[in-house]
């Protein structure tokens, strides 16, 4: 996965799946229909501000709550390239990997980063912000395989000989 740079949006702790995409909108037909309601209860303006390649930086327990896979899908559909958080809720974590959304655990960047600034990510190695490097871990192999396949659907397609 190559190095990338994006504009930062800063969120707090315990950003739950109902904030990321409220239940009310889950029956909309497509993720594209849903994306305008991303983060609606907390920051309804976000979908209009986020552009392709932007990065979300959040606190603890990002994605806690329900198993709705629309949460990572909506974040991805908004153009977000990765979410950096102190920690992630486990179902959200699995769903993100399975949809090819990169998640990075880091607990230092939150203290310094400001919304609107740019930040660079070297996957598996470090985050660079204002000339300072912040170390990040890498994923276990089985997860990296899924990410490299572009998500679980592609991984299964490969398994079934479709690609």
């Amino acid at each position: 996965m190559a190095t990338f740079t994006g504009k930062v949006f800063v969120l707090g702790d315990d950003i739950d799946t109902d904030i990321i995409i409220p239940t009310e909108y889950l029956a909309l037909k497509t993720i594209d229909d849903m994306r305008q309601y991303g983060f609606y209860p907390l920051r309804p303006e976000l979908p209009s501000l986020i552009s392709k390649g932007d990065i979300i930086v959040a606190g603890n327990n990002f994605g806690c709550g329900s198993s709705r896979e629309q949460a990572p899908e909506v974040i991805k559909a908004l153009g977000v390239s990765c979410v950096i958080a102190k920690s992630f809720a486990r179902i959200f974590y699995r769903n993100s990997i399975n949809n090819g959304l990169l998640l990075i655990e880091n607990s230092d960047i939150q203290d310094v980063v400001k919304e609107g600034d740019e930040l660079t990510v070297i996957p598996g190695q470090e985050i660079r912000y204002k000339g300072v490097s912040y170390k990040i871990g890498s994923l276990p192999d089985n997860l990296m395989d899924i990410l490299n396949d572009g998500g679980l659907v592609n991984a299964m397609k490969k398994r079934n000989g479709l690609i």
Partner: protein
Amino acid sequence: MGATLIEKIIRRNVHDDSVKAGDIVFVKPDRVMIHDIFIPFVADKFHEMGFKKVWDTDKVVIIYDHMVPASQVDDTRHFRRGDEFAKEQGIEHIHRADGICHQLMPELRYATPGDIVFGTDSHTVTYGGVGAFSTGIGYTEMAGILGTGELWIKVPETIRININGKLRDGVTSKDIILRIIGDLTAAGATYKAMEFAGDTVKEMSVASRLTMANMTIEAGAKCGLFYPDEKTAEFSGVPLDEEHGCFTDDNDGDYAMVLDYKAEDFVPVAACPSQVDKIRPVSELKDIVIDQVFIGSCTNGRLEDLRAAAEILKGKKVAPYVKLIVTPASRSVYLDAVHEGIMKIFNEAGAIIMNPGCGLCCGRSGGILTDGETVVATNNRNFLGRMGTSKVNIYLASPVTAAKSAVAGKITA
């Protein structure tokens, strides 16, 4: 050294007694559950992945509950897609209006002790109440399981929670689990299993255990487990032995953390807006005026919950201008409540009695609120905007606290 309950369950599944916390293993689920919100996505992904046939139709259960009855015109598309998929695959375990998935799975014995069960809903953790390892996954992974019959998991570490002693009157298992979540915080058990033991737990009904297991996800846990006993065996219709998944407690596992609680120390508590771990004693919240009370959900919509509320409401009326909404967890809970005279009590008290289903808990209908309104609810989440606008105040509490609050018109223990 002994093993934790989660290790025992996974070892049984993978036929390998060396498996321990931290290992990544592929398990073969004994059952999977898909609910209405996600069935179209599961079906689409399943086909997109190139699968033709579900690995084992008997192991698949489809349940409609979040959208029953439909409240938006597109909702019924989910029923049609679910029906189509069930027909195409020959899936016979389909429940279209029988109640909440997490009530039906243990009630109808789809999830029994020692089983590994995955569901497309985060509260799939509920079946830990009967000693099954069950947890929520996304629809893509579900589609993958339907095709392959397996899923990778990391064997979780265990937080052991011992509770001993006798609970005070008016304190329920809901108060216990809320307090524990408050102590651990909403992320305190992330990736981990919670294992409950002690004589207080042994005294509890299966229903009370299901309530606690249900909410372990609110501490981030992968599952919340109870050792099966005579009550579990009877409830699940299995013999009480290890061969049938009823594992005994070594109390000697390699625990990541051990918490000891005295039952006498628990008091009625509530999770305050808008975090599940923002726990305060109800006594400190008294006089908070309320607009609505909700009794129901996979956390507290079972017969014992309705009974407890009815006992308080008998011969009384819901406070003027306050709505009490009662949503039984399943068709059989509803019928039992009719037969026991509980529905009569609710109706005479002025409650609004809904059909079995998720109702207000999933925030799509069933009593949505608006800015400045306050609700006491027995369900599992009080997230911002969960039951209406982001300016609704949601207090999570036990059915006892909920019923008392409905009568008083303010939060009351």
